[in-house]
């Protein structure tokens, strides 16, 4: 016997969803184009605007990279992880330490930072966030806030505030139609895209990835098919932290390493997460690029203002008008 049940489900819905995303991408693209055009008028110099766009995209890649781990944690566990920036700082210090101690190429320190941060992620989730005490949203926010203060000041206590720098061996500069691009930024950008794609592939095409999405979609349902939800949560948190580890190794030649460096990325990363839709790894990458552009264009539009101001304006608008993010679906 086969049970045939006629349905009234509108079959057009799936393609229309794709269409909607495309449409929104079109709108965003058009907005960006207009913004760039206005910037051109404002600045009067094509090369300056072009350099700004290139720099914005490259910096945005870095933001996307950092936001990826955060969006995963936010989307699956519903935790506003205020310690993400601090975890990044911890990973940076590990990377710096490894380079200092062994002379390893900075990118290769990923071999250390990724597993180390994965482990830190496991410990943090098991020790602080899972279980009864961490239940409510506010509590988790406060715990991760406490953790970030703890980590930052722990680093301060043991390594001091002196900024530390790691150079990229064989740094080169490339010319992209007149815009200058440092090799290290280009590699970091490529790394961000690669990591984003790898994460996306992992989520879409592996059993673990599907399980992570399943838990995000319906936790009780996941339990009912035999998934150990708490373990998936821990793994997700650890993977999110490991992303910060990867980001650290890619970004360490670009920044001065200080205990508080996470702060500057934390809030930007949250904006990126909300913009891209929480839990959406590719959204984080795209959101990162947009925020990178917004920052650069802000400095052209509003001379004398912090680039962060533009970021916050975009943030507030997105929160009010599309809290589910550019590519998320309203629930």
């Amino acid at each position: 016997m086969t049970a045939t049940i006629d349905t009234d489900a509108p079959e057009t819905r799936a393609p229309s969803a794709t269409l909607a995303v495309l449409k929104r991408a079109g709108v965003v693209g058009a907005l960006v184009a207009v913004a760039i055009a206005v910037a051109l008028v404002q600045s009067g110099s094509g090369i300056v605007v072009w350099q700004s766009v290139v720099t914005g995209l490259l910096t945005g890649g870095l933001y996307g990279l950092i936001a990826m781990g955060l969006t995963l944690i936010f989307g699956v566990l519903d935790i506003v992880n205020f310690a993400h920036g601090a975890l990044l700082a911890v990973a940076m210090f590990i990377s710096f330490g490894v380079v200092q101690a062994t002379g390893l190429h900075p990118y290769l320190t990923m071999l250390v930072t990724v597993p180390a941060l994965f482990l830190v992620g496991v410990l943090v989730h098991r020790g602080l966030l899972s279980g009864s005490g961490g239940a409510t949203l506010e509590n988790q926010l406060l715990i991760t806030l406490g953790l970030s203060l703890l980590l930052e000041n722990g680093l301060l206590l043991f390594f001091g505030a002196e900024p530390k720098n790691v150079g990229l061996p064989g740094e080169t500069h490339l010319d992209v139609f007149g815009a200058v691009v440092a090799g290290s930024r280009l590699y970091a950008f490529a790394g961000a895209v690669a990591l984003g794609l790898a994460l996306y592939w992992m989520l879409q095409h592996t059993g673990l990835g599907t399980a992570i999405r399943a838990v995000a979609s319906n936790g009780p349902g996941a339990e009912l098919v035999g998934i150990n939800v708490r373990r998936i949560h821990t793994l997700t948190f650890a993977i999110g932290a490991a992303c910060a580890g990867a980001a650290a190794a890619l970004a360490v030649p670009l920044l001065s390493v200080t205990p508080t460096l996470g702060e500057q990325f934390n809030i930007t990363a949250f904006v990126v997460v909300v913009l891209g839709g929480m839990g959406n790894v590719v959204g984080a990458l795209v959101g990162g690029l947009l925020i990178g552009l917004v920052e650069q264009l802000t400095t052209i539009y509003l001379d004398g203002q912090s680039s962060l101001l533009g970021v916050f304006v975009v943030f507030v608008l997105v929160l009010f008008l599309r809290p589910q993010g550019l590519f998320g679906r309203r629930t």
Partner: protein
Amino acid sequence: MLTLEKLSAGYGRMRILHEVDLHVGAGELVALVGANGAGKTTTLRSICGQLPPQAGRIVFDGGDTAGRRPDVLVRDGLVHVPEDRALFGTLTVEENLRMGAWTASAEDTTTRLEQVYDLFPILAERRGQVAQTFSGGQQQMLAIGRALMAGPRMLLLDEPSTGLAPKLTWTMLDAVREIRDTGVSVLLVEQNAKQALAIADRAYVMESGSIVLSGGGGELADDERVRKAYLGL
């Protein structure tokens, strides 16, 4: 297969089930019917491990289930399909089904996937579609299909007919009987008493958290007392 011994359960200080005794034999299709709020869903939630009993015992396959979470019980072959279906809305049909086989080997997954597609061809047609775009009937098929993917020895079904047009309800229940015929024990909770009783081997009638009647399915279907339990006449 499954025995409840003086099971009491509830939420917090609130007790909903009062010393429920119930038994489902191997390969049996047992219906649990009763009016809204009688405690049917709470019974299923207790059995599957979502709601720890306050008193009494649940014995599945000879072992006490005390302290075992749903994901552990699934590995033992006890699978629950809740009333809200708990599907992974953002996942495709096939992904939902594959997740259903989380505890199974790759080989079993492939064969079971085919079996489920055989049982519900519409799922095969729409294997790439995202679950949250489905209608109620399709979602219910997917939920049952997903449960079957785990290779259950016992299935707990909570109101598979909710939200379905009356015509569909019967088709759905027929699929349930089909599943029983493959050797899976089924505990079916239904508000739709007539139909449930018509396909069940045995049935229990629940009222205010207690079992008030039990007997063969056909026998209860004609029982005036069932009608009373519902309509309060």
